[in-house]
């Protein structure tokens, strides 16, 4: 199975580093998905949500407040100012990270639409997550 290596780094540390099936990024000109063997490109990202499809078919999401991504054939690197991974093994952990992610988005983005879209996505993700 084809996979690509995704790395999300912030100045405060590495948030995510693993092989994944696909990833959807909030590009400056609109959302775009990356599958393995994607053409190389560099672009800016806006505040939003990164949707990651893991190797086992499950999804993980990470909220970012600004970013920059570099896509190579088999790897994606995201540089972000702040990033919060939404996840955890219990419901309360998910809720907690969800709150943190919302705060992160609110603190930076001046576009209400972007916040609303991202928040809706995160919430639906948190709700559909099975434990």
């Amino acid at each position: 199975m084809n996979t690509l290596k995704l790395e999300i780094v912030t100045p405060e540390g590495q948030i995510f580093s693993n092989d994944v099936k696909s990833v959807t990024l909030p590009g400056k000109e609109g959302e775009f998905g990356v599958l393995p063997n994607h053409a190389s490109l560099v672009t800016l990202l806006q505040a939003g949500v990164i949707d990651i499809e893991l190797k086992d078919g499950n999804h993980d999401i990470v909220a970012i407040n600004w970013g920059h991504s570099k896509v190579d054939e088999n790897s994606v690197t995201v540089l972000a100012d702040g990033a919060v991974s939404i996840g955890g093994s219990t419901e309360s952990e998910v809720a907690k990270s969800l709150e943190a992610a919302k705060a992160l988005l609110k603190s930076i983005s001046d576009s209400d639409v972007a916040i609303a879209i991202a928040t809706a996505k995160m919430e639906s993700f948190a709700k559909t997550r099975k434990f």
Partner: protein
Amino acid sequence: MANLKEIKRKIKSVQNTQKTTRAMKLVSTAKLKRAEMAAKQSRVYAIKINEVLSEIAYKINQYKNGAVESRFFDKDETPKIVDVIFVTADKGLCGGFNIQTIKAVRKLLSEYADQKITVRLHAVGRKGIAFFNFQGIELHTSYAGVSSSPSYEKAQEIVQKAIQDFIDKKTDKVILVHNGYKNMISQELKVVDVVPVDSPLEVLETNSLMELEPDESGEEILDSLLQKYFEYNMYYALIDSLAAEHSARMQAMENATNNAKERVNVLTLAYNKARQESITTELIEIISGVESMK
């Protein structure tokens, strides 16, 4: 007898000091570990941003067949106004840690004064602020309370103005001075010219197939990345300085504890001598009293 009491009191006082310094050393050791970890974690980001920066610079070079037209790369040989951002600790009791940074800043000041270049000082950390205020040297901006708990947001706040002034051509150069962490027992003074960026950046020629998305946004991406690069440098200076501060304090407190130990030994010796002397005097008094009764 009064002498004996006095010495005893001194011993107690030195022992108390020793307790404090030992505790401070332990605290610094623990904090140093945390600061070191933070520095280590953020290094991943440094590597990545350098990679991406050099690739984009290379890419734009290709498009334009020449120099990158960004103020961030425009090396001005004769700067007129220079920003100096320096980081000191908020607290003392860490040996020569703060003084080293201050000395370096003063050296820069006098060098630039000789060349008739205006320097604007941006101070981070109470110790540096206090020093320059006392000397009557004007600080352009000052930030207290950041050094002991650095965060990326605070770093952004500090450099935002400096970046804007640089882009608006109000300043020609920005220098970052801080005392950095080298290893557990030594610090290293770092004076870095943040912008203009030392060009040419180390250019990687491998990924020449990379596309910029959207096509014409190369310079925009580069500029925003360079701002991040600047902010990151500031953040790194803060955490590096914190690690160095703790290592310096650890060492200073270790020395203080050892000195206190030595003092206690000397004082104990003096105490015992005084005690013996007083016993001897008492004995002589008793004996001579008995003798006189005969």
